[in-house]
């Protein structure tokens, strides 16, 4: 009986939805964002037409993009260099910071 209860509990824990999106800390991300600012602007609004705005973008999209630069699913020499030493936590924090800025919008 005990074993079944433990099993049920374990299954319930597994079935619980994984924490949605990034659980990054925007204030920590801000501190880590200095290197990003050179191209993407201090608050995620880029001064150059070549570099994307990050302000207001979805955090989980930003985090996925950073991961893809790191694992090679996206190939870009500049970004590959930038993400080389970023941990998963760094990526989540940076994503949370830029997502918290006002900027990009849904356009239909």
């Amino acid at each position: 009986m005990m074993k079944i209860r433990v099993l049920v509990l374990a299954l319930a824990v597994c079935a619980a939805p994984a924490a949605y999106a990034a659980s990054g800390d925007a204030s920590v991300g801000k501190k880590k964002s200095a290197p990003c600012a050179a191209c993407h602007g201090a608050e995620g609004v880029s001064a150059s037409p070549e570099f994307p705005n990050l302000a207001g973008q979805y955090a989980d999209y930003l985090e996925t993009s950073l991961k893809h630069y790191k694992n090679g699913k996206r190939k870009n020499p500049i970004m590959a260099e930038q993400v080389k030493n970023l941990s998963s936590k760094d990526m989540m924090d940076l994503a949370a910071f830029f997502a918290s800025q006002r900027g990009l919008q849904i356009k239909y």
Partner: protein
Amino acid sequence: MHPARLLAALVIAAAAPAFAAGDAAAGKTKVFQCQGCHGISDWKTAFPEVYRVPKLGGQKPAYLVAALKAYKKGERDFATMRAMVADMSDKDMEDIAAYYGAQAVTTAERK
């Protein structure tokens, strides 16, 4: 700015191909396939990873064109977007980018 980063930025800027400005009005007639995902708030991809598809309103047109071309060249690995760009001409990409970038983001005030 760190000298290496400045140099990198300058190299990129110098290497950037001439960017032709698209026609936002023409772009409006070409985005019907984009809207199914990018026009819906919080729309998520389901495969192979789950995350919200990016907001495009106010994005830099030159960046959007570069991203579309990267999908076409295989420098970005996402099957849905590769299928979307397969039949797009450079002009289509420029027009679509102009449409989405028409409302430029100029402020970064905190929410």
